């Protein structure tokens, strides 16, 4: 039996939006997730702190945090969590909430995700060269030298396509994605 989450609506929202999210209520703040996180040192709040902040109702601070955007999806936290909390999936949920709220002030990571999906929605496949160029020109024009090294090596070995591939069933895919987005909005 669980108490209605009237006091912490945002916590409840996150739990609802994550498969298996109920387990978050049992977090014992042991820090296994944060100790395991390969990008933990670069996060402004450790994943454990994010959960404490969720419990404390600090919605705004959570959505401003870079933590979810530094998640590399390695699932160490999730595999090691003694309470079986789907931590990686919660990070995905927080990314979605953060994009909706537009509170995270460094747009680099959200933009990467969005550019990636832009290509998928136009072609049905991802497009590495276009993606990398578009993204790097927006976010780190100064580092295009290093990008150049990367791209050149890849191009000379024929590992980057110059043109995106398009799948046959683009109409079908778009119909499916449109419907899905409509469902998500409700």
């Amino acid at each position, binding site marked *: 039996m669980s108490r209605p989450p009237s006091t912490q609506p945002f916590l409840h929202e996150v739990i609802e939006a994550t498969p298996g999210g109920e387990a978050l209520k049992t977090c*014992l*703040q*042991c*820090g*296994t*997730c*944060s*100790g*395991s*996180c390969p990008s*933990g*040192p670069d996060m402004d*709040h*450790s994943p*454990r*702190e994010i959960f404490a902040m969720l419990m404390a109702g600090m919605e705004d601070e959570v959505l401003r945090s870079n933590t979810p955007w530094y998640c590399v999806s390695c699932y*160490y936290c999730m595999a*090691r969590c*003694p*309470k*079986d909390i789907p931590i990686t999936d919660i990070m995905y949920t927080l990314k979605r909430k953060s994009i909706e709220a537009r509170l995270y002030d460094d747009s680099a990571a959200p933009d990467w995700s969005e550019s990636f999906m832009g290509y998928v929605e136009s072609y049905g496949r991802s497009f590495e060269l276009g993606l990398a160029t578009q993204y790097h020109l927006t976010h780190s024009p100064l580092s295009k030298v290093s990008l150049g090294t990367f791209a050149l090596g890849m191009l000379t070995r024929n590992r980057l396509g110059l043109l995106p591939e398009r799948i046959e069933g683009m109409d079908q895919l778009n119909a499916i994605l449109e419907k899905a987005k409509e469902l998500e909005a409700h």
Partner: protein
Amino acid sequence: MSERIGIYVCHCGSNIAGVVDVEEVARWAGENIEDVVIARDYKFMCSSLGQELIEEDIRKEGLTRVVVGACSPHLHEKTFRRACANAGLNPYFFQMASLREQIAWVTKDRERATKKAKSLIAAAAERVALHAELEPFTVPVNPATLVVGGGIAGIQASLELAEAGYPVYLVEREPSIGGHMAQFDKTFPTLDCAACILTPRMSEAEAHENITLLSYSEVEEVSGFVGSFKVKVRKNARYVVEEDCTGCGICTEKCPTSVVDDVFEAGIGYRKAIYRPFPQAVPKYPVIDTESCLYFNTGKCRICEKVCPTEAIDFEQQDELIELEVGNIILATGYETFDATRITQYGYGRLPNVFTSLEFERLCNAAGPTEGKLVLRDGVTEPKSIGIIHCVGSRDVHYNPGCSAICCMSALKFGHLAIEKSEADVTSFYIDMRPIAKGYEEFYDRLMEEGMHFVRGRVAEVTDVALAPEEEGKLIVQVEDTLLGKQRRVPVDMVVLMVGLEPRPDARDVALRFGISCSMNGWFTERHPKLDPVATMTDGIFIAGTCQGAKDIPDSVAQGAAAAARVLSMITRGHVQIEPIVAEINPEQCSGCRICNELCPFNAIDYIEADAVSEINTALCKGCGTCVAACPAGAITGAHFSNQQIMAELDGLLFDVNEHDETMQPEPTAA
């Protein structure tokens, strides 16, 4: 003649009344159920005033049947039966309805809860009207007791009983009694030497005239019931004749085969093929481990036989089957430690200098493989730094959800020993520090003063992959220091894993053999978690120590003594009453088909050739009722669970069927 039924609906404070409209249930019962002459609701039926209420009504109103709607019958059936008996009513003219466990605690909707309460009360009333007068059987209690498990809890229980003057059979699976406690160096928080306080009790148990010690033995079969159990014990062949052996130890000394000792030395020491687990072992006789003995494997050697001055070695010795008769049984079968190789990220088994807490106990023990020297796996190097990791395999839904209760204190003890024995810097990595009993918090204070370090955080991993010069050649403990919110990498020479306590891997088989139950995890289940912690649901079977759940030495000893006290009260009374719930065959109706004969697991049904009917031996019948259900002629009656009583119960439960028809008028769905 119609019965005079009294109905009592308990509020249980607000436990029941908060959800069920108890006044309404009582009012409704009084008006609608046949033969009900009194229907009351009352705050606490189990209180003495509640019981007096029933007694008074029986006397003054001439009640012939009583129904109480309250908690589960497993809690208070006996209470109310006693009240009936006090007022001169046969205690079996009583029936209980579980309004609290089955309704109030599991239902939210008041209306539906109240309706269900009415149906349970109606069922009880319909049934109780058909109850027959029964008398419990009285059986004598055999004053001998079987204690299974010779750890500190079992030893304590045995000594209590033996001191009171009653015979005890103490059965131990290992070659020596002593259990886990015998492996320890010091005990927290007083730092008594474990051997100094345990070994005298072991010798006392062995020497006691009332204790028969059966070591290297296991219980194979249990039959009978409270007061008179029959037990078969297999005494494994030691290949050493106990009567002849003086325990001089020359055989062990001369034995050429040395193997890793997984049991007593926790895998970090060696023992011979003919061995005693430790010098103060009780009994003192060695055993031959046939798996590693040269003679048993190759047919050659027999050195032990040659050197034995008393010719006590007997390679032809066979297992012995011993039959015991006892009135009660105490199980004190102990625990197993968590297998640390299951948490691969801690590197146990791969990284040599990761140890388990049990290994560390042996390392610190002056009688252990290093004679108490604190060294790394190479056997030489003293660690300069030690990391102690708490909760390994505990508080984790993947392994054991519960807290193992002893690890925090053991970790503090290890901290003290390491500081005392070495120069090492000791750091404890904990989730929550739980020094909960008398003197424990003070011990924690002491360790902080002694300079032990504490990092609050559950360790993520232990690795040998160095990322900085100071990490080279070290084990790196990676953890979030949760009080700082920072990831830390702490390089140490030695890591100690505080492995959790688990039920014995064969706990379920043992529970089945003794007819008791286990929790989901495999701990033996007590009759009541607070008020009856050492009894089980099976009369005459008691539990003590860590087989019931993780606990430390003081608690194990207390439970051993408590279990003995429970047994003593049975022995002193001399007899015990058992439920008269047995089956009976009406020979007039029996067709002699013999279907029931084979169904009975207790061989309680015999076929009488002469009369061509079957007959039940009530002394052997345990009242499961399977034969009653199977008899095609309906010739078998189960006392207190007759066909008529259950059919009546059905009528009561479905009291509202017609009500439902009037409102719903559903389309039939069946063909």
